[in-house]
């Protein structure tokens, strides 16, 4: 029952069941952060570390994160690997196909700003944030599974700080 103690709420007991009063923001954020479904979008080497993080030893399922193949069913897109100009157009289309609220994690050096392919490279996009908005950057080449999980936990904290008004239709940078 530790959760109840930590909840910033006021509990009332009414015969027939307990009622918890809290804010809508808190409930929505908590449920969104605890069940982020990510899209399989491994491009290069970081994809193997992403798969290893979802596999037996470092399990993603305990955070409520399951992989889904289709962007329509996913909340989170890990951009794992180098993005080339040819692929960048498709990344943008896939990002727009995801339903809001949607989040992007740039995993690895190549997705953050080009990585080892920054110099002398004519076909690599130097960072995925040139085409889509990014929420969390995870450096590394490739980042260890522990780094990846730390990035996901930071994303969960970021989600928990959101307000309902952020996702209204006036939001400009979605």
């Amino acid at each position, binding site marked *: 029952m530790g959760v109840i103690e930590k909840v910033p709420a006021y509990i009332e007991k009414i015969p027939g069941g307990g009622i918890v009063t809290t804010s809508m923001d808190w409930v929505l954020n908590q449920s969104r952060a605890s069940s982020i479904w990510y899209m399989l979008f491994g491009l290069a*080497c970081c994809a193997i570390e992403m798969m290893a993080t979802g596999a037996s030893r470092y399990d993603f399922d305990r955070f409520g994160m399951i992989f889904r193949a289709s962007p329509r069913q996913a909340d989170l897109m890990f951009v794992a690997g180098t993005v080339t100009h040819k692929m960048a157009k498709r990344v943008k289309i896939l990002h727009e196909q995801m339903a809001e609220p949607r989040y992007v994690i740039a995993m690895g050096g190549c997705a953050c700003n080009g990585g080892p392919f920054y110099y002398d490279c004519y*076909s690599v996009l130097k960072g995925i944030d040139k085409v889509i908005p990014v929420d969390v950057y995870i450096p590394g080449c490739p980042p260890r599974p522990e780094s990846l999980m730390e990035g996901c936990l930071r994303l969960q904290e970021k989600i928990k700080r959101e307000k309902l008004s952020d996702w209204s239709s006036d939001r400009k940078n979605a």
Partner: protein
Amino acid sequence: MDRVLNNTELRDEEFLINMGPQHPSTHGVLRLVLKMEGEFIRDLVPHVGYLHRSIEKIAENRTYNQFMPYTDRIDYCASMPSNQAWAVAIEKLAGIEVPEKAEYLRVIMTELNRIASHLIYLGVMSLDLGAVTPFLYTFREREWILDLFEMTCGQRLTYHYIRIGGVSRDIPPEFGKSLKAFVADFRKKLDDYEAILTENPIFLGRTKNVGVLPLDVAKDCGASGPTIRGSNFAWDIRKAEPYSVYPKLNFTIPTGKVGDVWDRYIVRIQEMRQSCNLAEQALDGLPESDVIRAKLPAVLKPPAGEVFSRIEAPRGEMGYYVVSTGDKKPYRVKIRTASYGNLQVLAPISIGWKIGDLVAIFGSLDVILPEVDR
């Protein structure tokens, strides 16, 4: 309504389907455009280039030692053999002699990496065919191998361990015990995997006699490695043009009989067993020495000339053609990878099958896209 009832001749139309760059079964960013007639594939055109990172252009602006980390990223599932291919090419060009202990360490590491790469193949192919359990099992075994690598060189995926002239550091004392324990345990685990998959009627139904690869098509299109060994052809660079200390070690080359998807699966399972033997033999034969790298100048300048060399990577033959002008940076580097040839085989052998079979055939070729695009 009358037209449907009276018209007994139903015509199929051909239509195009796009298995786009993002697809759970394409193992990376490959786009296949399929011309379908009903359920059957009539033609297939692969579109590649979605991961073209211009590594050959980068090579012309880096020194020979600075280029070594890029070779990791060409085939990241088997990073040690990729390093070794570049090291072997430059050692052949410059006439560098590698110390014996380094050669044995290279064999241990490349054979362990061969096992890790085939485990990824096994897990991902089973996942494509619908079996989720082998994926979790194989990635659990692979974590033990990655622990061994992390003990030695500190990295889990892209090692940069094999350097020109030798290796970068010696193995720690607890490596030998852990390796022997791993090999003893892994042989039993391989029996477990075979118990799940090899005689399973669903697996047999999806893979037996599917995607048969005739040997002349394979040779003509440039296929190599387990893809061509599945078609009953015992060709392995480690036996045909031996390099390193492979002539002193004892191993056989497994082959398939027919060249279907099941044969290529069995070839890889047996190769994992052979790699266990090789790693153990190399560990037993490790000489007592402290020299793990040849003495080289800080900036390596090989003599002017060209070289053509190749090794056996887990997916096939990987080789380099390097032109040097005597400068500290190479003039031209051409990387030839195994998946480039293996992918060209896909179009001839999948005509006439359904999309579900295409997933099985493509999984059995074990193609990694950065190898194709470089």
